[in-house]
């Protein structure tokens, strides 16, 4: 009987499913990017504070604070308008709250504007790191809202942002990355706009 179990275990252990080559490449790139980002951070710390990075940090923090406040206001409004319609309340699993979608659209719009106006010659890594942090917050929220596809899309932005933040990215590569990001963000904004207009038409 134990031989039987040993055979089962041995067979399952030997049954290795090879990782697709594009994933293996992606994992190598992820390590290179994490290392490059770390080197970039060390470089920034060594070069000290600059008024420009302080300005960007403050600007993004202010934008975040406004975004959070708008999110709260929007969610409050949503609650007050929904209260009289108790009969229409449906189970909310797999439904992304409207306030979240609005906040996400604002995040995409801000990211797009900031990336388009980014002065790559100046101290831009701080701003991109802030965008990454903000992106992670939305990614976490998407995970918690049971929206794995959206979380995956947000996760896919991170390696591009990391590459853009890396100190050794050549200016021409950075321009290409910004163009790619801008395009992806536009696609997401259009998708969100279409979804929200579909909801408006269906109600």
């Amino acid at each position: 009987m134990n031989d039987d179990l040993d055979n089962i275990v041995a067979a399952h252990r030997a049954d290795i499913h090879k990782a697709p080559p594009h994933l293996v490449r992606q994992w190598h790139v992820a390590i290179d990017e994490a290392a490059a980002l770390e080197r970039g951070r060390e470089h920034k710390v060594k070069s000290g504070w600059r008024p420009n990075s302080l300005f960007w940090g403050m600007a993004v923090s202010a934008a975040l604070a406004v975004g959070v406040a708008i999110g709260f206001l929007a969610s409050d409004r949503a609650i007050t308008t929904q209260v009289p319609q108790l009969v229409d309340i449906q189970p909310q699993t797999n439904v992304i709250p409207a306030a979240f979608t609005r906040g996400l659209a604002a995040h995409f719009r801000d990211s797009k504007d900031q990336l388009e106006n980014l002065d790559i010659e100046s101290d831009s890594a701080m701003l991109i790191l802030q965008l990454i942090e903000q992106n992670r917050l939305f990614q976490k929220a998407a995970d918690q809202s049971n929206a794995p596809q959206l979380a995956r899309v947000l996760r896919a932005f991170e390696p591009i942002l990391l590459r853009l933040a890396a100190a050794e990215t050549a200016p021409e590569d950075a321009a290409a990355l910004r163009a790619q990001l801008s395009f992806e963000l536009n696609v997401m904004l259009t998708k969100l706009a279409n979804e929200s207009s579909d909801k408006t038409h269906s109600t």
Partner: protein
Amino acid sequence: MKIGGVPTQGDFHEAIATRSDRWYSACLKITRNPDMAADAVQDALLNAWNKRHQFEHGARLDTWIHRIVINAALNQIRKSKPGIFEPLETDIEDVTATPHVELENHELESRLARSLSGLSEVERICFVLKHLEQWRIAEIATQLELNDGRVKQAIFRAVKKLRISMQDMQRERNE
């Protein structure tokens, strides 16, 4: 393979080149979902990179990452199916997989790996952790927030079901 000391970027590349098939395969057995398995390996690698200063002297880098990978796969399951490990009277088989995912799994996996799909989620994960990953019962129970008895029961049922499917496979091969 790297043993002890703070691992370098090159050590990570070496580990990915030589061991990532095993990590991915283990994640596939746990999650039965290629996207989740891929995300688990990536999350674990970045996590391991960020915590590489905690890598203990005398440990093997690939084994250390393997453990982080398995935890990441369990986190993926928890995120996608909250409450999956909460105690039930009887475990039910995974009926949440969409036809698309099922088809993908069917194409991707060997007959042997598919025999795992006859197990409930808890049975499959407990079996993989105990017999393929060689975790102790207490470790599995802690990680899945179950009691030891339930883990043992899940493993017992898993082995019983796998024996039957293995016998079927052998019978078909002999015919």
